[in-house]
């Protein structure tokens, strides 16, 4: 379910300390790059989500667009996770 993926993404974002604002105040469509995420932060997010969820982002998803918002990340992860394996 997308909302459950949202919670996983929010937990990783909160742990990263890369955003200039409190993660709880971030809407799922907010532009994370506008909120302080930079490309190094996006790489950290990639590594942390891969470890937490046991997935690997394929090359085609290693773009700025994938990491632009919680919604975009949830959509990418939903595609990578088999339905039964979702949190």
């Amino acid at each position, binding site marked *: 379910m997308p909302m459950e993926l949202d919670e996983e993404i929010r937990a990783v974002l909160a742990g990263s300390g890369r955003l200039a604002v409190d993660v709880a105040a971030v809407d799922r469509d907010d532009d994370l790059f506008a909120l302080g995420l930079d*490309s*190094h932060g*996006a*790489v950290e997010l*990639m*590594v942390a989500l891969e470890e937490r969820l046991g997935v690997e*982002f394929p*090359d085609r998803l*290693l*773009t*700025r667009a*994938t*990491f632009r918002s919680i919604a975009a990340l949830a959509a990418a992860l939903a595609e990578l996770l088999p339905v039964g394996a979702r949190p």
Partner: protein
Amino acid sequence: MGEGREATGGGGAAAASASDLLEALVDAGHLIPTGTPGLYGRGAAFDALLDRLEALFDRLTADDRAERLRFPPAIGRALFERSGYLDSFPHLAGTVHAFDGDERGHRELLAALRAGRDWTGRQAPTGLVLTPAACYPVYPIFAARGPLPATGGIADVASWCFRHEPSTEPTRLQLFRMREQVRLGRPEQVLDFRQRWIERARQLVDMLDLPARLELAHDPFFGRGGQIMAASQRDQRLKFELVVPIADPQRPTACMSFNYHQDHFARSFGIRDFEGAPAHTACVGFGVERLAMALLRHHGLDPTCWPARIRAALEGASP
């Protein structure tokens, strides 16, 4: 493209592949192999050509009033760590190590050496890192001066630089000369600078009659995460390169790069603009050997036989 306009003199460097070009440059005495890939001595004519290209850079930039700064080809560990280089390019950095043992350690080192075993375990970091790009030493200097003046700052730097990418492709050197201008200031000042240099590069290519083109580019970031950084750099149009086919017609070589760092270095080193905000920076760099090889590839291996117009441009005579 260089096809159909091969060398005009000096026997020609009509190289079909990287190894052919390397062989031609070695046979002509321009490069002297050392036994280590990407590490070459330079013959007299090649070295003179490098100096003439640097002199051409001097003439192109004579009116810029750039502050000329020169450094030995290493930076201190603290500067290196602050620069963020290890975040992006851990695979390209070269650190200097030296023997750090006592007499017993020395005997062990020699025993390992004579037995053909690894002796490098006795080496400890010296605190020096080989300079990865000529502009790095500039940032802490400008930061230490306090806020920039309203006109910003502009520096002219040159250095031997190191990149750990051993290759037999002759344009991919491990140690090479880089000449740069660095601009520091407000975003519009810095973007203006980059735009002016892109126009200047077109002028240079015309003077030297090289089949060059300008391309959107990205740095060789490390690993899978590097793909995100590369995509991000391209999306934001932060890096352009002037590329010329040299060793491989299909994969032209970057001879100049035009880089907008936004506030990356200013935040790392604490460089402020005149209003106290983090400054923006940009740099434009020449790979001196690569430009020289582009000329040798397209105009022939003997610079004395090049067309008069190109020789005049390099010698600073009026056209």
